[in-house]
């Protein structure tokens, strides 16, 4: 509203350019985070695009030099939850769609274990899944994840720890929706893959 004083001349264009460059670099991460929230890749990309544009529009309020990744993730997350509140249908479809997509997205060549992990993730409560993904895959510190989720650091810590335990238990006893027969196989495959992956690094 009263942002007029500073909105001014194209002396800002250099700052805009720097902002844009950094934002473009974050697109892959926004897409990945969106994919873990939204039901399918198409709506995930819609979400990521919306978040990107929201970030662009709000660039005046961003302080260069601070953590832009965390800032854009927070925008994306807020966008997701406000959209979700708006459409009641979404929540109904959510779980189903998530499971379907998580499988559909999968590379047919990928080892079975990845499927199992995705299904197990889908079975976690959203807040736990989100915390685990931010800290465990997104590379955020607990403090940053707390900022993104708008909750206390201790809350994030306990969500991550509960998510880890739950994931472990789900993988272990095969309570993800499958035939349930290959429960210990899933964990075995994950262990084997992890071993292969970490030795490859």
């Amino acid at each position, binding site marked *: 509203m009263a942002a007029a004083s500073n909105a001014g001349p194209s002396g800002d264009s250099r700052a805009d350019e720097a902002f844009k460059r950094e934002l473009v670099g974050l697109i892959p991460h926004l897409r990945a985070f969106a994919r873990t929230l939204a039901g399918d890749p198409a709506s995930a990309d819609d979400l990521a*695009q919306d978040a990107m*544009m929201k970030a*662009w529009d709000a660039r005046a309020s961003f302080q260069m030099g601070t953590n832009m990744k965390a800032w854009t993730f927070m925008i994306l997350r807020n966008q997701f939850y406000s959209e979700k509140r708006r459409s009641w249908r979404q929540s109904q479809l959510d779980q189903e769609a998530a499971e379907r997509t998580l499988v559909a997205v999968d590379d047919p060549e990928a080892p079975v274990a990845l499927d199992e992990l995705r299904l197990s993730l889908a079975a976690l409560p959203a807040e736990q899944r989100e915390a685990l993904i931010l800290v465990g*895959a997104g590379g955020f510190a607990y403090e940053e994840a707390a900022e993104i989720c708008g909750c206390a650091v201790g809350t994030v810590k306990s969500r991550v720890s509960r998510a*880890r335990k739950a994931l472990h238990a789900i993988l272990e006893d095969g309570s993800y929706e499958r035939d349930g027969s290959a429960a210990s196989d899933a964990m075995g495959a994950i*262990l084997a893959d992890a071993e292969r992956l970490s030795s490859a690094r």
Partner: protein
Amino acid sequence: MTGDQKEPRGQALRKPGAGDMIEHSASEDRRRAPAALDEARLRQQAIGVRLRQMFDEVVSEPVPEEFLAILRQADKKTAEND
């Protein structure tokens, strides 16, 4: 009689002679505990590696042109409004 016991089981284990049937298995438990811990840690690490891989898979996908086009357009609009 076990129903009256208020102490959690773990604590009773640490007290030698707390119960005659515990005494025997205590040393065995002590030997087994670190191994179980290691395994749990290993599994958590394995899940962590997988989780990152899953995320990185999407990160490494090429950015759809649409994203860049939208941003370019918005940038142009800003320039025009100035």
